[in-house]
């Protein structure tokens, strides 16, 4: 067969492939564009951010008590500092339950030594399932601190133990290494105060701590990450997490509240059986369960995302560790999808089933697949002449340059409405990073997503190892004052 006739056969196929890739790319970009616009509408419309003092005088007497549940596994290096920082949060009445999930290191001992813990007895009802508790510890010095020592069972398991041990109407799930702004709780609790009957869950903002100065468990100076990978994640968090979630919250299709900082109504969490054990995406899954629960019972409800309260977290600076994180997230998402696949495009589940799930399917599953496909095939097809240049250009538009518009759009929105970066230089660096994000970083992310899909299909287990640097000064991404 001659080269020409081969080409003649290939051409239509190449065109179809290219068109499919371009269309999915367009759809994906359209989703993000709508999200940025909706986020802009939402942020513009809210009243300006209150000072903490004003919040305290307005809500100090009526803010309902919250339990902060802190699951900890092998956090010996940083647990004491974390707990101290949680203890000094500006909130009128709150408890802290630290759940030592069978740590193999000195996490428990560090707590015992620092806070002079002794065994205590607590009245509780095992309403959600978890591995057995070995002992409960407390101290007179901090009557609102309870430490639960239990057999290892994973983060979801530890959270469930915390849920059982709290008697308060709300609980806030955090990571042991999250750094909360001192007024994060009082800001995040506002939707519950404004609408106590309908609000069932609230998510706050997660921001990247790399490049910030940490002192005494608090962020004292907001700075931009220096390391390129962390910098790229900063842009990504603004676009795909902050703006997208603001938009989804407004459209009432928010399906993910980060496990690093989320407040839930205890009753509802118990009613859906707490956090599920058999998935690595337990924070996504519990929100989906809650949607399901409320929709099936026809109870009016609201799940909100509030951009003001901030939780700072350390972003991975190594490709390997970041890759593992993203692969895990993808698997978690797919596991949740599989578990709740009857909600997909099911009108019974309203917007969440149709729009919420649909969007995630598009942006997190289909689009990465087709983009990777396109990246492989389209340049090749064009090179051998099976594809006209216009297809290649359109593909580049959809995969690279349009993305620049979206990433910078997120930066612009952040600057207009939120202004969390104090230095002018930061803004410039962010803009450059936003451009760079689309040439390589997003593509790698798509590859990780595909790997995550693959792993899911093959049924791999577990979390992999995430080495924690903690917040120690070393060649540190997080500058600490002594």
């Amino acid at each position, binding site marked *: 067969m001659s080269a020409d006739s081969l080409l003649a056969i290939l051409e239509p196929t190449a065109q179809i492939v290219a068109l499919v890739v371009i269309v999915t790319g367009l759809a994906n970009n359209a989703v993000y564009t709508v999200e940025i616009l909706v986020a802009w509408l939402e942020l513009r419309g809210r009243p300006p951010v209150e000072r903490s003092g004003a919040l305290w*005088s307005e809500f100090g007497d009526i803010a309902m008590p919250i339990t902060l549940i802190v699951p900890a596994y092998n956090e010996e290096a940083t647990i004491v500092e974390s707990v101290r920082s949680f203890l000094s949060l500006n909130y009128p009445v709150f408890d802290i339950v630290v759940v030592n999930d069978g740590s193999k290191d000195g996490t428990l001992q560090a707590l015992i030594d620092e806070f002079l813990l002794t065994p205590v007895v607590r*009245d509780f*009802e095992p309403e959600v399932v978890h591995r057995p508790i070995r002992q409960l510890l407390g101290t007179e010095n901090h009557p609102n601190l309870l430490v639960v020592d239990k057999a290892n069972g994973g983060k979801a398991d530890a959270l469930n133990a915390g849920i059982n041990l709290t008697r308060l109407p709300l609980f806030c799930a955090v990571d042991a290494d999250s750094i909360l702004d001192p007024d994060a709780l009082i800001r995040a609790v506002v939707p519950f105060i*404004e609408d*106590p009957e309908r609000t069932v869950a609230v998510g706050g903002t997660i921001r990247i701590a790399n490049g910030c100065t940490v002192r005494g468990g608090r962020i004292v100076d907001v700075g931009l990450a220096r390391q390129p990978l962390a910098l790229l994640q900063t842009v990504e968090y603004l676009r795909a997490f902050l703006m997208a979630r603001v938009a989804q919250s407004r459209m009432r299709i928010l399906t993910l509240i980060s496990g690093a900082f989320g407040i839930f109504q205890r009753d509802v969490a118990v009613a859906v059986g707490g956090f599920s054990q058999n998935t690595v995406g337990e924070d996504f899954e519990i929100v989906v369960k809650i949607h399901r629960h409320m929709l099936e019972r026809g109870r009016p409800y609201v799940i909100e995302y509030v951009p003001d309260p901030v939780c700072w977290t350390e972003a991975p600076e190594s490709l390997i560790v970041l890759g593992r994180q993203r692969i895990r997230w993808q698997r978690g998402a797919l596991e949740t999808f599989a578990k709740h696949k009857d909600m997909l495009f099911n009108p019974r589940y309203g917007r969440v089933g149709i729009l919420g799930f649909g969007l995630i399917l598009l942006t997190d599953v289909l689009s990465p697949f087709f983009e990777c496909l396109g990246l492989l095939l389209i340049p090749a097809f064009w090179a051998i002449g099976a594809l006209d240049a*216009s297809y290649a250009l359109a593909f580049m538009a959809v995969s690279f340059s349009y993305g*620049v518009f979206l990433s910078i759009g997120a*930066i612009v929105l952040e600057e207009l409405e939120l202004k969390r970066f104090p230095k002018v230089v930061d*803004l410039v660096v962010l803009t450059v990073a936003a451009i760079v994000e689309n040439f390589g970083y997003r593509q790698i992310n798509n590859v990780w997503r595909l790997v995550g899909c693959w792993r899911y299909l093959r049924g791999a287990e577990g979390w992999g190892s995430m080495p924690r640097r903690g917040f120690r000064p070393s060649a540190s991404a997080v500058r600490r004052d002594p």
Partner: protein
Amino acid sequence: MGLLESLWWGSLLLSGLSILIAGGLVAMRAVNVVIEGRRARRRDELTTYIVVALDADSPTPDFESRLNGRDRDLLAEVAMELFEMVKGGHLERFTALLKRTGVIDAARRRLRQGKSFQRVRAARLLGAYGDEAAADDLFLRLRDRDVNVRLAAATALADRGEVRSMWELVHSLSYAAIRSTPRLRHVFRGFAVQHADEIIALATDPIGRHLRPFLIDAIGHSGRFDALPFLIDTAMSDPDKQMRAEALAALGRLGHPDAVDAVIGGLVDSEWPVRVQAAKCAAAVGIGEAVPLVERLVEDPVWWVRHQAAESLSSFGEVGHAALERLALHNTPGALVAQRTLFEKR
């Protein structure tokens, strides 16, 4: 140019545009940094002046006459911080300062003409520092088109403890998409003592129906025993479980032994929030006759009820303690609760 190619050029255009906008914002930010710096210094000067002037009550007319609009905005900001910080003589002198320098007048203007969030801020300022005339303005704001402004005005009036007409207040707050919010609780509690009669009347008036939980709650804070029949009646026969629960909570606050019938009824109510409040009320008022029923509730199917019942028993002294010990001997979930409560209260 084909559709596909135009996608390419279009995307370039968009990204180019966004980079330009970003550049513009960077420039604006650079300018802002300078402005913010000046603002911070000016604020520092103003606060130093305030701190000295308040203490010695020695204003400097020269300094004050040279204040401009931006200074007044800064003063308004500082005003709210000070309000949360000090009271008494200092605050009185500061109020006088705000009047002298025209900040109060500016706030009254903002209350009428500003954007929503400005009206809310102005309402707060006037709630803290305004005078009689300001109270009138606030009262007018109860008819504002923005529900947040109405709520801010209501809160401001409640903090000052004065309102021309409770009826007007209830009217303005009912017609809104306000769902139940504890801020409203705060508002009505603020009027509980001085406007108890009106609140009691409104609690039975159809116009108050959206706000009944808050009105009932406020009655509990009024200290008025003549409202007892109403509360008892609500607790025993209102069809809405939330109202029955609120009424029992209010009875607990009033603390009058006449509540006994309502409590006994509440302890066997079919809805668990009502049973919880009844158990709480029994302990708050100290109703001995209720103890056997409270004891039974320690074996209630709903855990919150069991928990509250056990807590309540523990505040009945010897009798309660004995009850808990009896319960602790069984082999039931309730026994577990009793045991643990005994342990904790040791």
